[in-house]
């Protein structure tokens, strides 16, 4: 029963990773770039929510509703001043520029707040503590279920947006071939801006869940980025639903790893990620050949 419970908790954890990874996956799908500051943007979102909660005493969920437009605007700004330039300059430039940005965000947060950890758990109401005991070894937490439901809604909503709306079609067309899309009158710059804005908005949602589930500090971002990227790769780069599956696989790997040894939780996720890379890129065959 502990294994079943571990898998269940892993699915809940994985849904959280999927939300973190969603924006990363969207930006890669549309622009073919990986934003190395994605984790820091999620943490920044958590801080914005934290500030609103501190000043108004509102619930973390209400604060998120206020923070969301702020983060979306930030997404547009990010696109305009950093990403747009870097997109034209080759494949390494977006990585270098967003890595620099990541360091800037982390240290601005250090300056604005302190290195201390914060949490949004206290301001999220009873959802953080409520749970249902299914059987003796199996419990379903309200928070886990909430994150899972929200993750499915976010991925489903994004899928609907991409397949049913005009703006979504334009986004898919640009993702397929930006130049061809330009020829039929789609402004790729506007499309990229929207994609980044959506990605940063969903990152803020990831920040909300991060803050409610556990604690965060100014340097929490890189770890979130690694987990998000692992979810994207495990699920298959460029596939949106794949990212949800990848997030869940990562979460389950981590909770199962923790069953063996608490310190092996993160390790198990890393190993799954590396194994997927090896299988996908034929490194396995190469390894076998070099041994044989």
């Amino acid at each position, binding site marked *: 029963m502990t294994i079943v419970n571990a898998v269940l908790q892993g699915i809940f954890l994985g849904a959280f990773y999927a939300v973190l990874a969603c924006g990363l996956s969207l930006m890669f799908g549309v622009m073919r770039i990986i934003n190395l500051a994605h984790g820091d943007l999620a943490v920044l979102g958590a801080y914005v929510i934290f500030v609103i909660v501190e000043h108004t005493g509102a619930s973390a969920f209400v604060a998120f509703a206020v923070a969301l437009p702020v983060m979306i605007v930030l997404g547009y700004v990010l696109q305009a001043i*950093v990403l747009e330039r870097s997109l034209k300059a080759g494949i390494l430039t977006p*990585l*270098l520029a967003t890595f620099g940005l990541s360091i800037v965000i982390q240290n601005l947060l250090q300056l604005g707040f302190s290195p201390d950890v914060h949490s949004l758990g206290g301001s999220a109401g009873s959802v953080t503590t409520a749970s249902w005991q299914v059987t003796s070894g199996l419990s379903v937490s309200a928070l886990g279920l909430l994150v899972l439901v929200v993750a499915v809604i976010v991925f489903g909503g994004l899928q609907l947006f991409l397949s049913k709306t005009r703006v979504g079609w334009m986004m898919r067309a640009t993702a397929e071939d930006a130049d061809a899309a330009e020829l039929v009158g789609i402004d790729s710059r506007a499309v990229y801006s929207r994609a980044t804005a959506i990605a940063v908005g969903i990152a803020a949602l990831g920040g909300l869940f991060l803050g409610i589930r556990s604690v965060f500090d100014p340097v929490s971002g890189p770890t979130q980025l690694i987990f998000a990227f692992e979810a994207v790769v495990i699920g298959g780069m460029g596939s949106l639903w794949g990212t949800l599956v990848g997030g869940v696989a990562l979460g389950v790997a981590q909770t199962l790893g923790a069953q063996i040894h608490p310190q092996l939780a993160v390790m198990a996720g890393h190993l799954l990620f590396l194994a997927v890379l090896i299988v996908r890129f034929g490194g396995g065959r190469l390894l076998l050949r070099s041994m044989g």
Partner: protein
Amino acid sequence: MKVERWTRTSKLFTGGSGGLVILLACVPLIFEPDVVQKLTTLLILVLLAVMWNALAGYGGLLSVGQQAFIGIGAYGTVFFSGLGISPYPAMLLATLLAGAVSLPISLFALRLRAAQFAIGMWVIAEVISIIIRLDQNLGAGTGISLTQLNQYEPNFRQAYTFWLALAFTVVFLAALFLLLRSPLGASLQAIRDDEDAARSLGVRVAARKRLLFVLAGLGCGAAGVLIVANTLFIEPGSIFSVQWSAYMIFMVLVGGLGTFEGPILGAILLFAIQTTFTQGGPWYLVGLGATAALFALVLPRGVWGTVEERLGLRLMPVGYRVVEKKRDA
């Protein structure tokens, strides 16, 4: 028209750098140990910058995980010293260990492109860091001291470590210099300029990249060795920190990605900044991050790359240049 490799400036400078090495070798005989320690730090930065540039500047491989090899070098030194091998030979072994580990990693890491390679290397560094944390004999998460170096009197120890740092720096710089001047080097620079075009001309891109990857593994391992020799204490949180990658990226981007001299200039700049802002602190890191991003976006060839382009100046002759032959009057 004729093609030349050596110019007057580059002859002067290459000769001058030989003289500089001899001067540097005398530093421990003249200066106080704290100066020697500072200069050791500078040499470590030079080594790191040059090795990261070998990967990114010539191989097009942007790694955010070179701290894996820094950590292996540092922990390897502690491990081999613990076996009873005397510290300095242990340091050489640890450097070789980092190179040896880089070979199997290269088999699969080099198949990855761009972000996959960058973050894949980062995850590999994390995995190695977790393995170290699980090993009680290596101090687990709390760190470990290199006590074996205490057998030397501090002034001598500092001098030995400095000479080792100088030797490593010279060896790795010379190796890269000779590599770039060899026929292999022409293919490396071709890969840097256009990987697909180079491949279509028959350059064995994968083999060339592996060479750079292992060289960078050795070099970063050597830097890790020097870090533990210079500070005598390491812990996984800082030696495997992604901050090292941040420093490397800063030095190379500011100095000049894909140039021989640029990363050295970048290392000197970072060293000057570090000694000026001794407090360190968040503002200093905000500045580093912002500067790196700005250079990537606005001045991708860095300070040295731009100087080279504008003035046609070459201090180290790693390429060829075409000069108009003067007509006889």
